[in-house]
């Protein structure tokens, strides 16, 4: 069966309606109104986010979003894309998703994009790695820092003159761009703690037995002075009524060594990467935190 695969204009009211109806069926979530735009549309220095659709006659039956990220690499922007909301209508399973993704790769390569990355769910992970040749990269590492200035210090590496902090040859998430995206969706829910360093994130809740506990999930951070990082977190803890601060970083993050005592987690979805105009490898450093993810 031949499908019409093409980029979609999410500002076109008919297309917007098609996507919304389709996503509501597939994900059983409310994507009506501006939800999709608020969640995924970034104004990049290069190109905005890309939305691909597969039509069977006039019916949208496959969809994928590519969030445009102006990652920073050695002081330059490397426009790269996060694949998300990958979805095919239950009645149209088959090669449709592969075709849609291959078409997207062509378009993004022509845009000069660095690479495509993402954190697919367990169900679509194999399609990405086997069918679409994405490289399976490392998992994240997690730190749960108790919200007590008395004990939180034990979770930070003691900084001394012998230590170094480097961002050379690392792809940095663009916190300026991310914060704009998240704030347009969540408003004041996104908190920014700013002194010599900057940490941003949001307060989430988790049910533990009968209790619902609040914790601060760090979306990103700009560390200028690692020596004073624990002070920044102490400020965060003082300013918010939370039980702990959760820091999740990609395994290769060049600032992972600022923290101590990681805890194992079985819930991580691994980062997957497909190179377009930039060559990455298993040794490439991605300074990614939770905030870069579409689901954050």
């Amino acid at each position, binding site marked *: 069966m031949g499908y019409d695969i093409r980029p979609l204009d999410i500002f076109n009211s008919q297309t917007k309606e098609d996507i919304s109806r389709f996503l509501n069926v597939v994900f059983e979530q409310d994507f009506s109104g501006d939800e999709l735009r608020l969640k995924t549309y970034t104004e990049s220095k290069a190109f905005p986010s890309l939305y691909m659709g597969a039509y069977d006659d006039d019916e949208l039956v496959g969809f994928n979003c590519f969030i445009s990220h102006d990652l920073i690499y050695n002081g330059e922007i490397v426009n790269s894309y996060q694949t998300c909301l990958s979805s095919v209508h239950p009645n149209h399973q088959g090669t449709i998703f592969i075709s849609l993704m291959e078409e997207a790769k062509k378009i993004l390569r022509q845009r000069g994009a660095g690479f495509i990355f993402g954190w697919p769910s367990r169900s679509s992970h194999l399609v990405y790695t086997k069918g679409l040749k994405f490289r399976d990269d490392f998992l994240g590492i997690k730190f749960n820092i108790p919200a007590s200035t008395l004990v939180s210090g034990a979770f930070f590496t003691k900084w001394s003159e012998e230590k*170094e902090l480097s961002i050379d040859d690392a792809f940095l998430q663009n916190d300026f761009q991310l*914060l704009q995206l998240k704030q347009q969706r969540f408003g004041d829910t996104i908190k920014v703690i700013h002194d010599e360093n900057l940490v941003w994130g949001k307060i989430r809740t988790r049910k533990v037995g009968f209790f619902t506990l609040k914790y601060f999930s760090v979306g990103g951070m700009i560390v*200028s*002075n690692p020596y004073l990082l624990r002070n920044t977190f102490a400020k965060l803890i003082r300013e918010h009524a939370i039980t702990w601060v959760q820091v999740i970083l990609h395994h290769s993050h060049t600032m992972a060594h600022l923290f101590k005592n990681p805890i194992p987690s079985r819930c991580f979805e691994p980062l997957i990467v497909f190179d377009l105009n930039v060559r990455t490898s298993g040794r490439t450093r991605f300074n990614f935190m939770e905030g870069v993810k579409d689901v954050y």
Partner: protein
Amino acid sequence: MINDLIKQIGYRFLFKNVLKEYGMTLGYVFHTEEIFDKSVFESLMHFCQEYRKLTNARPICALMTPLNPRVREGMRIHNVSMDEFAGRVQLLAEHASIGYHGHFWFHSDEFKNGTAEIRCTNFLRSAVEAQVGEEVQWFKSMNIRHNNVYAPGWWLMNAELLAILRCNGFDVDFSFSKSLWFYNAYSHALMKRHYIRAGEPFVLKTRRGDVTCIQNFIGCHGTAFPQDFDRNLSSLLDPDYREIIGVVNAHDTDLIGQGFLDNTLNCLRYLQERYNAAIVGYDELVAQARMRTAKILPSA
């Protein structure tokens, strides 16, 4: 209060004459960010005059120009015109050596958003290059000499910025520091790699030319205890490098703090009397640094 008491007792026994083995040549750099505020401007003018009376030297006022969005916003709030601002800088130049102080942004409209500020760990060359170019043009158009001197915040220095500055004529820099309070990933690694000691001037070769780097020792010493200076500086020093040259820094807004002016002048007087410290102006500082520089290093 308790802190002061502890210091008062402690300094009777500790850190006494701890710098006496060192020859000190010092300059003073003001990060000049808010002279759109008349009270800050007047305080700074007053300080510079008093400083000159005491030391016979001029401090360095590294200036954020009115093209910087944060200054522009301040000028709007304080109803200060571009000409009035330039006039204040001209007056300041009579008592201080003017330099350039940078705060850079991803997007100038978003300067209030903390993530919009460019630091060492989110450096974006194109944005910095554009802003430096515009601000240097402002100095030229107002006929204000920036003396080719750059004093940044500690949060942003790297080989790219040095090259951009050098390309725009800046050949003296005051950003490097051994103090962990002024930690910067790039400058820290560079000084470590080349065994640069506190107070040791050095030259960095950029692809656009050489930059003389004079270290920034510590922040303002505006406390009532001049011995704070001894304690803080001595923790950075290397006993094998005793002829030290560098600057201390403060913000123009610090002058609004109670006692800052008197305490600072008192501290400078103390350094002169106790340690025979040479407190010098920009020309002397740079000349001395260039004379003593033994290390010429690649910036990248």
